């Protein structure tokens, strides 16, 4: 196992055979620098939601890895993601969080760009440049690929990355739980309020691992359960489905995505929720019936925390949120959390959910505060030269995943561990770090798109 003498990534730091992972991958500055190139410059990353930029000229400043990007809608209505850096001397061309503008103007020397990224204004273009500067060549740097998936905007800097749907693979239905209407209609989600943003002094992989499906840390939230912040006045969530469903860890091994979720018995709807709010309870009861009618057996899925590799967290049930863990150096993460509601939901439902979401999530949310304490102190206690000699243990449930899981007629793809009785496994974390190690070692996407090789082999056989 690596010691504090490690200079950068090398095989062995993630040893899934022994279930050991070196602390170096969290605290080592050389490995962090390599991650920016090997992970964040190659993977698909979540940038924002189209409901944040409904009108031409609207923009929302986001991040891809460490780098600032502008999500905007041009005058023709097309959505773009640009590097927020002037092509002349690199100054940010947009220093607001969001707004509406006809142009992005660099305050340094005045180069100016349209919302389609084209360079449209160059001071002294005729005089100093003698009208010879090729403006078409010096527009804002645009991402190599962009995907609007049911309103959520994803982008990658790598032109060789597979299309986003292929990147998701069999994980698509879990993102659908987040973005579709609760009644099963497609792409009915909208963002509620603004994006909450805050800093945590830990490596970005701590929250990414946690949201991959760590059910083992529930003891951390015991005080919240006792306080009873849930939507029915008890616990953290309405969790009636826990008593009747199978609770699963589902991992998509060749993609690095993983989640917890519940599968209800065939023919059974979720138990009643929102006990003290009749309008909200009736809304969700009606939606559940509609969802089952529209989605059939797949309507039996009930979402829970999950992670799309590398740094986007899902939580489609309670509270319905997405988060991105932006790396801000090896020892700091900027957390961004979006809150979702059905756009057609009654105002009473949106208002009720807003109050609940704020109690639960974000820098002032009671549950998220528990998590931040853990990541903060775990990271700090792993930085010392002695601490770095000793790997973390990820052995829980090794060797128990199956690839043919089925419950009452519903076949669940991926590697699955049924944790209904065993309570917990670390398969999601192992899946996440296996993929992380593949990204760190791979030369390019021809190495990373392992499923394409498997598909070819299957055809050949």
């Amino acid at each position: 196992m690596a010691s504090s003498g490690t200079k950068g990534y090398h095989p062995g730091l993630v040893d899934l055979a022994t279930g050991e992972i070196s602390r170096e991958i969290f605290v080592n500055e050389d490995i962090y620098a390599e991650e920016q190139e090997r992970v964040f410059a190659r993977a698909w990353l979540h940038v924002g939601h189209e409901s944040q930029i409904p009108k031409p000229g609207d923009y929302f400043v986001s991040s891809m890895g460490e780098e600032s990007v502008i999500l905007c809608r041009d005058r023709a209505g097309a959505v773009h993601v640009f590097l927020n850096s002037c092509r002349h001397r690199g100054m940010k061309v947009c220093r607001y969080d969001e707004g509406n503008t006809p142009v992005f103007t660099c305050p340094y020397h005045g180069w100016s760009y349209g919302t389609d990224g084209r360079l449209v204004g160059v001071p002294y273009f005729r005089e100093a440049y003698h009208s010879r500067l090729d403006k078409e060549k010096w527009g804002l740097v645009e991402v190599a690929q962009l995907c609007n998936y049911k309103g959520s905007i994803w982008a990658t800097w790598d032109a060789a990355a597979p299309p986003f749907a292929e990147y998701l693979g069999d994980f698509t239905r879990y993102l659908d739980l987040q973005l579709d209407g609760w009644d099963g209609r497609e792409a009915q989600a909208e963002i509620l309020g603004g994006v909450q943003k805050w800093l945590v002094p830990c490596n970005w992989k701590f929250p990414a691992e946690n949201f991959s499906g760590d059910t083992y840390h529930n003891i951390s939230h015991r005080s919240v359960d006792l306080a009873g912040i849930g939507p029915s006045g008890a616990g953290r969530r309405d969790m009636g489905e826990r008593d009747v469903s199978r609770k699963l860890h589902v991992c998509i091994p060749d993609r690095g995505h993983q989640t917890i979720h519940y599968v209800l018995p065939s023919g059974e709807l979720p138990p009643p929720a929102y006990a003290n709010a009749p309008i909200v309870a009736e809304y969700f009861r009606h939606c559940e019936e509609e969802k089952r009618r529209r989605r059939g057996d797949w309507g039996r899925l009930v979402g829970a925390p999950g992670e799309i590799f590398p740094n986007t967290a899902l939580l489609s049930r309670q509270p319905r949120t997405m988060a991105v863990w932006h790396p801000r150096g090896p020892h700091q993460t900027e957390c961004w959390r979006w809150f979702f509601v059905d756009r057609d939901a009654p105002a009473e439902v949106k208002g009720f959910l807003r109050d609940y979401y704020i109690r639960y999530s974000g820098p002032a949310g009671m549950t998220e505060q528990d998590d931040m304490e853990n990541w903060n102190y775990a990271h700090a206690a792993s930085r010392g030269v002695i601490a770095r000699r000793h790997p973390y243990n990820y052995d829980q449930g090794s060797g128990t995943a199956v690839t043919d899981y089925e419950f009452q007629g519903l076949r669940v793809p991926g590697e699955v561990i049924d944790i209904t009785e065993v309570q917990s496994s670390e398969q999601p974390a192992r899946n996440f770090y296996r993929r992380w190690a593949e990204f760190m070692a791979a030369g390019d996407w021809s190495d990373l798109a392992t499923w394409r090789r498997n598909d070819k082999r299957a055809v050949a056989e």
Partner: protein
Amino acid sequence: MSAPVNIRDLAPGTRIALADGAEAEIVDNPADGVWVFARYLSAPRDPALVGQEDMIFAQDVVAIRPID
């Protein structure tokens, strides 16, 4: 030397004098303090510009003209 013009405050319809002797009428102002969009009313050095819209750099705006 006259005081610099604060172009952020200029509304569409405002007529401006430019450093090269041209005059233009503002059609849009992004209020970034660096550019305004304007239509040329006169352009002694390049008459072909008259009637065209262009982005005018703040340092090229030397005066505000009264509307006739």
